[in-house]
């Protein structure tokens, strides 16, 4: 049941024709070569768009914070300061690369690499649309949780290898925070897995519908609480304020990346902003209907039937609508993440642990039990379906 972007493309005639022509020209079966090329191109696009999203994320962060604090924000480089992130990138590349004398040089160089590799790896299963998902692994959720914790390892390594006391404190805090909040995040996404009956992201999204009342967030009371548990946990896992204790600049100078200069620091920052996008995307896919468009416009059948478009065009317009729906939901969550950062003060480290272990984890366990019992008792129907049944039963009784 694994589907990838290649299996989406292979339903079109042009793709098959291209493979056969290439096979004849090269003299061997070019299926895998074409698959590789498609994957390569798609990955290239995704990586570049995500780097752009990360860069514009820093810009959005500064602009929104300026808005909240009644300042101007960056407004000199490019129109409205839009090219500020490029200027920052140039600056970072041209900065001297300093490795502390007593640092563990190998781990120090590996840490930013690991952060970026972990984040890029988690992009593989983000469902942009029903066709444009790089690979829809049948263990997608599990894979994502595993790969994204590479970033936690990278943060700890970065803090540990610097051999600076601030970095060490930040790295230790980061490690304990990320592993703690992984528990409520895993448990609240497990509740959705139980309702959807599968681990792949397409299963999660296809089990929902386009309209808000078909989303899992409004499926039953437990998933409604579960969304907030997931979102709070995800904020902590990506080290976003109010949980940015690993880099708390008022107490730890700059936390785990105190000793990092130039582009190495830039990769940590880029990884953080892309990870926020990925986490928001997962929240959108699991709880907010993902790429689903209202009235099933996403499949393109409606367009084909009413406007008499050729199926190939209708289907691709549907895909674009799906990508639009997914990206809109994700960016709204992204905005909320930034909004939260500039609204709430930072937690203290003991409050952080109390919140995770004494509040979020028991609530997440309760939600998990609640969803399992709900599925068993009501055959996985949502509150609205049950209500409509009640209405139907009473009207039928007349």
């Amino acid at each position, binding site marked *: 049941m694994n589907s990838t972007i290649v299996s989406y493309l292979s339903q079109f005639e042009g793709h098959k024709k291209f493979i056969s022509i290439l096979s004849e020209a090269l003299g061997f079966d070019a299926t895998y070569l074409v698959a590789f090329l498609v994957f390569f191109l798609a990955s290239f696009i995704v990586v570049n768009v995500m780097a752009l999203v990360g860069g514009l994320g820093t810009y959005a962060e500064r602009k929104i914070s300026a808005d909240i604090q009644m300042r101007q924000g960056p407004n000199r480089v490019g129109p409205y300061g839009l090219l500020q992130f490029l200027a920052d990138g140039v600056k970072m590349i041209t900065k001297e690369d300093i*490795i502390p004398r007593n640092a563990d040089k190998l781990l120090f160089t590996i840490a*930013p690499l690991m952060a970026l590799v972990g984040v890029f790896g988690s992009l593989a299963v983000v469902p942009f649309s029903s066709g444009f998902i790089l690979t829809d692994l049948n263990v997608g959720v599990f894979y994502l949780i595993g790969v994204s914790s590479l970033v936690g390892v990278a943060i700890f390594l970065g803090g540990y290898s610097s*051999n*600076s006391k601030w970095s060490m404190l930040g790295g230790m805090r980061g*490690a304990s925070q990320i592993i703690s909040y992984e528990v409520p995040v895993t448990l609240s996404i497990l509740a959705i897995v*139980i309702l959807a009956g599968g681990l792949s992201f397409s299963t999660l999204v296809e089990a929902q519908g386009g309209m808000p009342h078909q989303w899992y967030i409004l499926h039953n009371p437990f998933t409604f609480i579960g969304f907030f548990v997931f979102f709070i946990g995800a904020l902590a896992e990506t080290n976003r304020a109010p949980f940015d204790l690993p880099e708390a600049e008022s107490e730890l100078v700059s936390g785990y990346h*105190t000793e990092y200069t130039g582009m190495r620091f830039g990769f940590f920052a880029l990884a953080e902003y892309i990870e926020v996008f990925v986490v928001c995307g997962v929240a959108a896919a699991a709880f907010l209907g993902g790429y689903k468009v209202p009235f099933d416009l996403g499949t393109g059948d409606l367009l084909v039937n009413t406007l008499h478009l050729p199926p190939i065009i209708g289907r691709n317009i549907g895909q674009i609508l799906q990508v639009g729906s997914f990206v809109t939901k994700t960016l709204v969550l992204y905005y909320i993440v930034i909004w939260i950062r500039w609204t709430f003060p930072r937690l203290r480290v003991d409050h952080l642990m109390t919140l995770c272990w004494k509040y979020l984890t028991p609530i997440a366990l309760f939600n998990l039990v609640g969803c399992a019992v709900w599925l068993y008792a009501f055959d996985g129907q949502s509150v609205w379906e049950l209500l409509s049944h009640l209405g139907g039963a009473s009207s039928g009784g007349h």
Partner: protein
Amino acid sequence: MSSPNLDVYMPIVILMAFGVVAVVGALLFGRLLRPSNPNTLKESPYECGEEPIGSAWSNFNVRFYVVSLIFIIFDVEGALMFPVAAVFKKFNEIGEGAVLLGSLLLFILVLVLGIIYCWRKGDLDWVKSFKLTDEQIKQLNGIEES
């Protein structure tokens, strides 16, 4: 497809390779542009402008170990629940949901007992508080006075 695994996991390898290329490429490219004149002060770890005292690789608080131990228990149990969660709906459709629900609840009961135990032991508190007896308080006061 003869070997579907290759097909499905290819993008992951490609994406991770992109990550490596991005980091290594940017650092190598930057090498052409950036200055490099290290000196001893520049290479010393930041300690608010003071001479760094000792190494940062020293003992750290045992609380971190406790947190990681609790995490391992919960994460392994969470990982073990994934297969059950994935097939729950299918079992429910063929009318075997009660078996899975029972085993899931039993499993979660063990988890809940574990968290209650940790809570009672005070391992979930970041700052552990001890209640001193009156005698101990007197003893401590005695030490201070003498």
